[in-house]
């Protein structure tokens, strides 16, 4: 099953929140981080990272929704606002805090991977990626290091 998540390495994220800005404009036509579907967290001297829906396979938000308002459309979960009763159970259940209630109308809002934030990310490092590709990148990085280490030790 093809599934992509929005991903950026916290060391590549600048914490500039252009993704929030892009999201807020495309979804709401105004600027309000409380209405953005992607929200950046900054902690300490070096950590910046957006909180955004991971489009879980067994999505706790969808599974817990009492009126089945969170529907699978292609590769993403989308809130059907007609059905949503604004009870907030999905918010309670999402392990990542990546789904919120709209401050004005109270229904659930979450990322539907429209891609606008990706186009606005200044370092260009926010991207859609298959989680297994992250594993691949990590694995390669680790292997390269190992190779260098072994070379240093002249064991190769």
């Amino acid at each position: 099953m093809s599934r992509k998540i929005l991903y950026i390495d916290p060391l590549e994220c600048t914490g500039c929140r252009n993704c929030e800005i892009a999201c807020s404009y495309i979804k709401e036509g105004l600027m309000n981080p409380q209405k953005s579907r992607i929200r950046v967290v900054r902690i300490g001297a070096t950590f910046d990272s957006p909180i955004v829906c991971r489009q879980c396979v067994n999505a706790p938000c969808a599974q817990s929704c009492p009126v089945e308002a969170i529907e699978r459309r292609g590769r993403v979960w989308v809130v059907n606002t007609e059905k949503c009763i604004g009870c907030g159970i999905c918010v309670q259940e999402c392990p990542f805090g990546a789904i919120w209630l709209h401050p004005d109308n109270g229904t659930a809002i979450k990322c539907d991977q429209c891609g606008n934030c990706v186009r606005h990310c200044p370092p260009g490092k926010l991207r859609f990626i298959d989680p297994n590709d992250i594993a691949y990148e990590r694995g390669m990085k680790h292997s390269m290091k190992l190779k260098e280490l072994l070379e240093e030790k002249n064991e190769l």
Partner: protein
Amino acid sequence: MSFKYRGYAGEIIRVDLTNNIVTKQPLDVKLAENFIGGAGFITKILWDEVSPETDPLSPENRLIFAVGPLCGTGWPVSCRFEVGAKSPLTGIYGDSSCCGHWGPELKFAGYDAIVFQGKASKPVYLWINDNSVRIMDAGDLWGKTTGETEEIIRRDLGDHRIQVASCGPAGENLVRYASIISQRRAAARCGLGAVMGSKNLKAVAVRGSKDVKTENPKEFYEFMKEIIEVYRNDFYILDRIKFGTPILVELMNEISRWPVKNFQTGVFPYAKEIGGERIRKEYRIKDRGGFGCWATCEKPVQVKNQPYAGIYAKQPEYETLSALGARLWIRDLDAIIYANELCDELGLDTISTGGTISWAMECYERGILTKEDTDGLELTWGNHEALLELIPKIAYRKGFGAILAEGSFRAAQKIGRGSEKYLMTVKKMEIAAQDGRAQKSMGLAHAVASRGADHLKAFPLVDELGREEPIKARFGEKYLPEMAQPLSPKYKAYEVKDGEELCALCDSLSLCKSSGTCLPLYTGQIYFEDMAKILKLATGMRVSGEELRRAGERIVNLQRAFNIREGLSKNDDTLPDRFTKIPAPEGAAKGHVVELEKMLDEYYGLRGWDQKTGLIPGKKLEELGLDYVAEELKRLGKIPF
């Protein structure tokens, strides 16, 4: 409540700290139309409410935090907030600008400005959470560093998204060049941190959740994308983003525009050791930026070796590498990074800190100061250990540090013995890292800037790297090639006047001068017409580029009028003799002095100011809609005939 123009919040907070009273007042439409926002608001409020009798550190002084109409809209690099007061360093108009995330948060909370007056009976901080505005006890925060203060407030209030601007121990101890810090970014110049300290105000914490609406969101957003393309494609901009301001280190050394050894020379043979390339390669961890930032100046760094090993939230900026590095002949980059960290945590302006210490080092070199004066410290050029000892001494006003805490001008008055001769100040402010002999426009800019020796009031850039296209587009072919030549005084008055108006607007709109405009400015992408377009799309205010320039001119003139009321005149638009009489000893500018008189005459002429006195004729003020200013200055006998 809704304001006539979008983009603005439409409300101002007034805090009377003496009487513990918070009030809110609607934003005056005329104020927005005439003074735009940010620094413009500060200028008008200071003119109205702070008189020549007001001591900067007295309860009567005002302390104003203000943002402009673009702040919080998400426009590229419009994250800035301005702080203003009568400056304890210069005794005249004072303001300072800071990037980060605090400014937009204030807008999201629903305010365009906060005006403090009076003095709290005990340490307090202000906590703004949307409609709720409360004066909180800061007993436990007093004495804490700026970083600690932010952490504690977030923890106590239980919300990580709270933005905090605070003063450090230096502000509490009324160091005349104490800064205000928010997430490691600084509103550093003019000693506004000391004004906070004098009011027993430790911090301003903000959290907001309201909409910022624009008049024409679709077109606004489209225009935004257009400007972003500029960022993405210009070679110089990309390089500047990659390295941050330290990229200037080697460039400025090349044109010998550096303040080496208290401006004795403009060349530092070890520039490479403290330059942008090295920081990027050996120290940088990542890039960081303020809200909507594309330039990411703030780059966290790691110092790997003892004794200064650690992870620090930001690389020193160009100004700091100059002030705490080349200016003191210091080439130990680890030590400079650590000194920068100390200044931020303790809340000190790195420029005035380095400027004051470099003056002391020159006095030490010349035998005017000895170990007797300096608590036994050897103030020799390049002694980074002395620097690191002096920084906390200044912040806590200990021993010799108490004298330096007054700034170099007052320290020289106190010490005497001919030390005044080595002052590198204008209007009592330490000159930033530009030797006017190597860039004549900077010499003029320093001499006339409303907040004292400062490069950012005019930010003359078009000649800095000699880019000709913007000159052609803005002034015309006839000004080339001289205007693009940093060593020629010709036409520099035009550039400075134009720059001052542009900068006044940036500071009023909340645009970052270092990237929001300056970068596209190099390429000629943002100018008055563009600003008018942005403002119209954001707010619905119908202004032409020419009218906006007028607003900039109005702000510049009102700051000037404030200073005239304080007693300033042409005599104060000066530079130290080192710049005007002593030729630059080496490098690209060798043999050059700043031809100040010539440029100054031309500048006054363009401004319509009196060339003999530097005062503003009543007619000029009236033309700018500043009749009330003309009247008051007339009453004081400060209008030229």
